[in-house]
């Protein structure tokens, strides 16, 4: 399934009637996102965020007429590979923006880099490409995966949490989450429990948590798993008894289902819809006006990715064939991020602040994450030192 968002007729007309800027060329951006299945809600956020930015900039990023081609990786590595190849060979895109999930990034990384195109990840930030294997063509506008978990571990350590029960799905990201948390947390660990991916009934795990004498639970349960776990956790009456520290478990993609059950729980991230910055508030209100739901970090990171491209393309006067100049300008990251200041580390992953997020019910009855307190300031990831770039 592919959708084309072509420039508006007005923009095209404008291109023909005015004197073209020197070397101005068209820009083609390919988006590789997960749009099908239950995790499709995440990809939808990123797609809408990116398109909103292109629309706000009048259909042109950095003065180049912009065409956005969206493909769905279906959360299958082979599909991602086929789709990205067609983006590179048939659509001849200049920049690939993707993906949501780290295992999809692993699938498209090589073909994009081999074709010497620019790859910008709006969400996935695996350790794999942050260290030794970093590459000048690869940029990340989100975070390095471990950082959210490290921030939670630091919060637990600094706030007198003594004993933590840890719960995550049994796959690589779940194990990374636990290791990330343990980087700063040095207290007691009651138990580390791994559940199958897509787990339905957490009653057995919740009984273990209730009898573990922990004062906090740390978890990473993305998507539907998070919806079920949070609901059952709340039903068991544990929300009032222990601190709930999580990442990717209570966010704008799961809150519409979790509702009140999530209020009082904590998440971690680099941004929330109530972020105290005028342009960020503008972004949230125009996003909600257009799409009718609250943007989460997935939408914001894709929006930032579009702004980043805009800044770099305008630095080379719209000449996207000047690849060296374009990459240098991307690395500069001279754009107005929704997170305030934005700088790239030497491995081209961001250096940024991490916050504890709480869940709030807004006056209009919708739910959103809100900034509670800053945990880490100007934090780079733990792998950048291994990157020789």
């Amino acid at each position, binding site marked *: 399934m592919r959708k084309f968002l072509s420039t508006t007729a007005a923009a095209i007309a404008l291109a023909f009637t005015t004197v073209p800027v020197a070397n101005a060329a068209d820009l083609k951006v390919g988006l590789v996102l997960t749009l*099908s*299945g*239950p*995790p*499709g*809600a995440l990809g*939808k956020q990123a797609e809408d965020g990116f398109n909103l930015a292109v629309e706000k900039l009048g259909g042109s990023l950095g003065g180049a007429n912009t065409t956005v081609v969206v493909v769905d990786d279906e959360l299958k590595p082979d599909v991602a590979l086929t789709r990205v190849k067609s983006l590179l060979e048939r659509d001849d895109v200049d920049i690939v923006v993707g993906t949501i999930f780290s295992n999809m990034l692993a699938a498209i990384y090589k073909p994009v880099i081999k074709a010497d195109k620019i790859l910008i990840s709006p969400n996935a930030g695996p350790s794999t490409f942050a260290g030794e294997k970093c590459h000048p063509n690869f940029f990340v506008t989100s975070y390095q995966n471990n950082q959210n978990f490290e921030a939670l571990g630091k919060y637990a350590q600094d706030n007198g949490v003594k004993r933590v029960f840890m719960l995550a799905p*049994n796959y690589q990201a779940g194990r990374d989450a636990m290791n990330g948390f343990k980087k700063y947390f040095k207290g007691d660990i009651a138990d*580390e*429990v*791994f*559940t*199958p991916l*897509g787990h*339905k*009934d957490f*009653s*057995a*795990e*919740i*009984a*273990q948590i*209730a*009898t573990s004498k922990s004062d906090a639970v740390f978890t990473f349960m993305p*998507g*539907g798993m998070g*919806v*079920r776990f949070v*609901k*059952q956790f709340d*039903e*068991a*009456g*544990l929300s009032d*008894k222990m601190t709930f520290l999580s990442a990717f478990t209570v966010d704008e*993609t*799961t809150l*519409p*289902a*979790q*509702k009140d059950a999530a209020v009082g729980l904590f998440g971690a991230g680099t941004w929330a819809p109530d972020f105290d910055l005028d342009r960020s508030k503008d972004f949230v209100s125009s996003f909600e006006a257009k799409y009718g739901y609250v943007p989460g970090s997935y939408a914001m990171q894709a929006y930032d990715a579009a702004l980043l491209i805009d800044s770099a393309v305008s630095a080379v006067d719209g000449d996207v064939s000047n690849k060296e100049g374009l990459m240098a300008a991307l690395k500069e990251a001279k754009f107005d991020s929704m997170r305030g200041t934005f700088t790239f580390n030497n491995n081209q992953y961001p250096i940024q602040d991490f916050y504890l997020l709480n869940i709030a019910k807004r006056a209009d009855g919708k739910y959103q994450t809100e900034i509670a307190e800053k945990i880490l300031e100007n934090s780079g990831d733990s792998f950048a030192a291994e990157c020789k770039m």
Partner: protein
Amino acid sequence: MSLFLVQSLNGLQFGILLFLIAAGLTLVFGVMGFINLAHGVQYMIGAYLTFMFFQWTTNFFIALLLGMIVALIIGLACEMFIFRHLYQRNHLDQVLATFGIILFVNELVKVIWGPSSLILPPPEIFSWSFEIIEGLRYPIYRLVVIAVGITVAVGLYFAVFKTRVGMLVRAGATNPEMVSALGVDIKRLFMIVFGFGTMLAGFAGAIAAPMFSLEPNMGDDLLITVFVVIIIGGIGSIRGAFIAAVLIGLLDTLGRAVTTDILRLFFDPSTANQIGPALSSMLIYILMAVVLFFKPEGLFPVHRAG
């Protein structure tokens, strides 16, 4: 000890749910020799229909009733228009066709209700909880599900063993040609069995929805476990399905709770953490292998003629 009791309760409740889905599947498989992979889809349909009617009526019980009626109609329509034409085909054709239905219906559900997880609240009168052990509240709704499941199991037992239709169903499972030769409309019998089976799966989905969440593909993971249940129980046997379902429910739940702890006695913690979760997911398949080794027809084999 009390924790063990709570975990057993959780296991029992999972087993009951498995039984409700397995009952229909084992009859369809046993009586008609028809492999219906789309049985899990009926579980999902039951849940989503009840959710939809709940939004319209805001009464759980009316929504459940309407949901079951529509689920039955959908089941019968599928039987008449699709499955009926597959009974004479080989198992591979049946698997392919019903797999196609899974893909189609999952996509349809996504188009209508969206890909995100949805929540169906339990009925008002069962939405409280009590402190089962210190520090842990147990939703009363889960106990209601166990009670309802056992009631359905007893009802099914009477229907299959004490009524005339039940007798024909059992006879059909043993020797369909002979039943047909004796003047019984076997086609109609199949249709009743099929419609009833899909409705039970839909019922399971609807009563499970307030405990878990609704999402496309929600029946597919369960279906594999349900196949394990009917194979262990003996294909076509209601009694076998019940015992196997409870066995699997307990083994899976208790297994997940204790496997890693037991392994920690023998290995260092990080190794135990690596092996434990994998091993506990395998337990039910290990049980199936063991049962099949000693009793290749399952625990309660249905005696077939010829």
